[in-house]
């Protein structure tokens, strides 16, 4: 299979056009502060870059910058059009290199590039382009706004892409569903020596257990009751242990069954330290059965059982769920599990690291991973926005990514010190469209309260 490459990502919403990246690049590559010689170019909405930037900085609503940078394309047009063989893509790093000794300065490559990523450097008379500084791009660390990031998640693809996908192609998920991504990656990581439990919900609904004699899974899989996943899996694992066989007991369960009707068996198994990896896919409701509320549904959210209405008998307008969500991962922390973590598919490296630790922990005790999983259908957002919604949840502290072990306490794995306002998250989806200012204020307050609580918990665990 092909390879994936690391790349420099740009978030225009965070860029204020300060130009620090261009200075850093020019310094690194030319020893000067000449922005014209920087291989990364930040371009404002106007024509003359610097003037436009100055204006834009004045007017925050005009923060609209674009990036001109070599994207190190998989199928680079610049390389294709070069008549001299001066440009070539390195198969290992993915970087497109430029060989001065072969270049004839025809500039055809600058025409071939659709991103303005390769341009004539007038001072030298040659083209210049980004080479990512051997994987340590000078521009990225100087960006204090977080608009530039060096994305290395391609490593996941390169490392695990050859591992067998243990689900059949064509699972029946909704368009843009996050859970299929999660299922495939999780099982691929856990591996074939696994017994998989998928209680009623989206996961079996997508075909993991199958219908009428079919199955979508290459490992032994079963459909526990909504209520008894952890108990049944405990029985499976104990017998294999008794037989001296090393089999991973894995549950991929929805939030509803786990936090509501299945909580007793989950709690019991955790208390007994049953050796399993229990993953909850938290899409904040019973999405598979028609989007009903669960105890993990957040305050204010529309669901089909917490509808938006004109009024009710008590005279109060019905405005979505009237209670805050149960914090299931924190409840599991208080079971003193061998390992507890929260994760998000928007941060796959983080998820993979946590899976590694969870699998290891499940060999001696109860490991619990809680993955926030936006639901395009039930949360009412376009199917191409799943990762964006997941990311916004973290950037606003609506969701916090941490891990816990009894020995090491609770540690944030991706702390957000300067969170975006929660409205940035809420407005990304339709289920919060009806919220009143009071409700938004309530949610923002709870997000901050929760962040403080978990922070304090973390500090106390470290003797703070």
């Amino acid at each position, binding site marked *: 299979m092909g390879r994936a490459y690391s790349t420099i990502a740009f978030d225009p919403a965070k860029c204020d056009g300060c130009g620090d990246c261009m200075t850093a690049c020019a310094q690194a590559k030319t020893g000067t502060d000449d922005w014209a010689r920087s291989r990364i170019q930040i371009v404002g909405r106007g024509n003359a870059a610097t003037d436009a930037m100055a204006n834009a900085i004045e007017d925050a609503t005009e923060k609209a910058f674009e990036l001109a940078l070599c994207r190190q394309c998989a199928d680079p047009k610049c390389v294709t059009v070069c008549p001299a063989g001066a440009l070539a893509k390195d198969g290992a790093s993915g970087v497109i290199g430029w060989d001065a000794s072969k270049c004839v300065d025809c500039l055809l490559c600058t025409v071939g590039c659709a991103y303005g990523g390769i341009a004539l450097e007038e001072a030298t008379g040659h083209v210049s382009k980004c080479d990512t500084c051997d994987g340590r791009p000078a521009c990225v660390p100087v960006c204090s706004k977080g608009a530039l990031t060096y994305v290395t998640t391609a490593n996941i693809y390169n490392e695990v892409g050859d591992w067998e996908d243990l689900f059949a192609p064509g699972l029946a998920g909704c368009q843009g569903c996050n859970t299929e991504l999660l299922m495939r990656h999780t099982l691929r990581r856990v591996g*074939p*020596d*696994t*017994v998989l439990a998928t209680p009623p919900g989206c996961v*079996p609904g997508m075909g993991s*257990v*199958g*219908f*009428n*004699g*079919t*199955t979508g*899974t*290459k*490992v*032994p*899989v*079963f*459909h*526990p*009751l909504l*209520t*008894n996943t*952890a*108990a*049944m*899996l*405990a*029985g*499976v*694992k*104990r*017998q*294999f242990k*008794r*037989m001296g066989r090393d*089999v991973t007991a894995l549950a991929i369960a929805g939030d509803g069954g786990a936090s509501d009707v299945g909580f*007793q*068996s989950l*709690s*019991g*198994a955790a*208390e*007994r330290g049953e050796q399993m990896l229990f993953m909850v896919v938290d899409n904040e409701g019973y999405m598979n059965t028609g989007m009903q509320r669960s105890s993990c549904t957040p305050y204010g959210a529309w669901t089909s059982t917490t509808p938006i209405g004109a009024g009710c008998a008590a005279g109060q307008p019905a405005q979505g769920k009237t209670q805050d969500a149960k914090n299931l991962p924190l409840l599991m922390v208080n079971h003193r599990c061998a390992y507890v973590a929260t994760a998000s598919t928007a941060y796959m490296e983080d998820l993979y690291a946590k899976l590694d630790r969870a699998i290891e922990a499940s060999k001696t005790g109860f490991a619990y991973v809680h993955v926030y999983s936006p639901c395009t259908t039930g949360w009412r957002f376009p199917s191409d926005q799943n990762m964006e919604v997941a990311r916004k949840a973290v950037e606003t502290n609506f969701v916090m990514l941490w891990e816990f072990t009894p020995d090491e306490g609770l540690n944030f794995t991706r702390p957000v010190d300067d969170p975006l306002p929660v409205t940035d998250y809420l407005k990304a989806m339709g289920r919060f469209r009806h919220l009143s200012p009071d409700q938004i204020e309530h949610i923002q307050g709870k997000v901050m309260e929760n962040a403080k609580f978990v922070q304090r918990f973390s500090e106390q665990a470290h003797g703070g």
Partner: protein
Amino acid sequence: MSTTTLEKPAVSAPKKQKVMLCEGNEAAALAVALARPDMVAVYPITPQSSLVEHVAKLIADGKMDADIVDAEGEHSVLSVLQGGALAGARTYTATCGPGLAFMFEPYFRTSGMRLPIVMSIVTRDGITPQCVWGGHQDAMTVREVGWVQIYCETVQEVLDTTVMAFRIAEDHDVMLPVNICLDGNYLSYGTARVELPDQSDVDAFMGAKDVNWHVALDPLKPMAVDPLTGGAGGKGPATFVRYRKSQCRGMQNALSVIEAVHAEWAERFGRSYAPLVEEYRLDDAEFAIMTLGSMTGAAKDAVDEAREAGKKVGLIKIKTFSPFPVEALMRALSKVRALGVVDRSVGFRWNCGPMYQEVLGVLYRLAGQSGTVLPAMSFIGGLAGADITIGHFHRVIDATAALLDGPAPTEPVWLNEND
């Protein structure tokens, strides 16, 4: 029909059996130890608490090599065992009354997955009104859930039948979960002399263990266990029907398997029980009374006394309640002209005992053959831990005798109502 597919060594004379005094719950626990389960899951609830305590002690003392799971409730107890059985474990638990009610969701599923789990029901009356005492209401309430249910009369029968239950459950022609029902309080705490078979003899009787040959959760043979079936359109419901018919077939097969296993037990251990239906002084009887469980002892004494008084009464004891032994009952009932059925629980829908309802169906089939309808009446006694005494059975015998000359009452006779 084959009764077992496992090769067993030839029967040799049993070793000397240890004679001891113990309560029914302890007898059940000792029997479980003899059957060598891999996994036992427990939750204590009256009147089966001392059963799981005995099991826990046997394991703690190294006399039983089983993984014990102290689960947080009966729902998880049975769920743990389902997982264990799917991974190949021989499994056991016990429950009663509210515990069985709480277990209902996985209870229904055990028979559908054809898992040969053995579970004692230390029978208890239903709540509400609040009641922690004996009665058959719990087991009767779940009689249509696909478990084999066998009732015991004595402490020794509890011990012997509990061992046999594993053979019956795991028989390849059955593959169904089995309940051994022992009367709460009377048998659970009743102490009696029992003979304990030698472990090596039981090992020879049990043969090789093979509990998940048909359905397994094992990476070495991956399969999807219990996929979704049904729905509109041909294939789904047809799959479901095949599963259900197979369950019914396993249940019917159990009748002959239970007989064969009991016969082998008698041969190996020298103690025989009527496996399905016991006929007591029935051959020359004009009428019969029918009993279930521990009440039978007092009933037999009453029959003996009535015989001495010249009354031609016999007794029919049902041992196997599920599958209902229709053929065996028809043979027994064809010998008499009237019947009194004593239940230790109520059937709310018919205003009579549940066993009486079942018998009515048998009487209908019998009438189809003989052309005459046997008069039968319902007695309900022993609720909430009440005694059904020899005196009560004399009332039962006299009221049943009256059916020979007069109409059968449509109302049940409630024993213990005024005593």
